[in-house]
């Protein structure tokens, strides 16, 4: 006789889910707070790690640096990428803001999603997730993920261009192609956002059905 394994949501799962979301909110809030404080001169520039470095495309005339890497495979070529890493060791206040702005946008979007998910998790724990407020929350999550995944690389293009113009001599450089490259868009995240829009619609219809059944004797 075969036994069927059933996955059932328990109270322990509720506690774990809300605990994880709360930890995520705390970690994201602390990151956001650190970034905000870092935009002021209160913290030394090197505390932000890689955030002080931007990567820009090298001008077309720049020869790629030589690469000395032993190759074992046949028909394999190794060459350096044509990009420049520009590090701001002592950024001014506006430069600090420009350096952290894309990350700050991402942190704000993540925080919003986590807070909304926590509110939804609370209704699940109370045993009644199919409420109109959760439909709105689902759409907020879907819109934030979709818009956020497009907005962060877009903001980065603008901030990187501004930082580049501040750091490099425009006469010596052909300024970077100004636009969002296809490679910079996080397509998996955009896809997740669109899938969440579909899920929000499923949720809306489920809530409608629930309303129909409510009051049925």
């Amino acid at each position, binding site marked *: 006789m075969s036994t069927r394994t059933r996955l059932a949501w328990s109270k322990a799962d509720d506690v774990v889910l809300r605990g994880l979301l709360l930890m995520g909110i705390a970690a994201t809030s602390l990151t956001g707070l650190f970034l905000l404080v870092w935009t002021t001169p209160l913290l030394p520039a090197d505390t932000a790690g890689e955030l002080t470095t931007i990567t820009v495309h090298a001008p077309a005339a720049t020869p790629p640096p030589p690469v000395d890497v032993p190759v074992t495979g046949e028909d394999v070529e190794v060459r350096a990428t044509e990009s420049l890493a520009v590090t701001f060791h002592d950024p001014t206040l506006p430069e600090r803001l420009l350096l952290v702005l894309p990350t700050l946008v991402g942190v704000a979007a993540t925080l919003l999603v986590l807070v909304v998910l926590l509110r939804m998790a609370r209704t699940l724990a109370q045993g009644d997730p199919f409420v109109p407020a959760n439909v709105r929350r689902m759409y907020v999550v879907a819109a934030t993920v979709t818009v956020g995944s497009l907005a962060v690389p877009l903001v980065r293009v603008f901030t990187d261009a501004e930082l580049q113009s501040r750091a490099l001599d425009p006469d010596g450089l052909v300024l970077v192609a100004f636009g969002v490259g296809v490679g910079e868009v996080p397509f998996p995240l955009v896809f997740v956002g669109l899938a969440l829009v579909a899920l929000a619609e499923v949720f809306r219809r489920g809530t409608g059905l629930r*309303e*129909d059944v*409510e*009051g*049925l*004797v």
Partner: protein
Amino acid sequence: MPPEEATGIRIHLDELLSDRGMTLTELAQRVGVTVVNLSVLKNGRARAIRFSTLAALCRELDCQPGDLIGYEED
């Protein structure tokens, strides 16, 4: 529960129970519906009724659906 809609539908369960000398609890047991749900129906807060519930009520109260449900224009 969502706000009540003014449908004009009236449930005459009170009168039928009174005429037959039956309590709501007794009827609920006979029909197989919870007292809470039957109370919702009796107080006009129900938004819909299953055919199976309606048939069971008619059977136990020995009445027709029209005796149980009426319509009054507001």
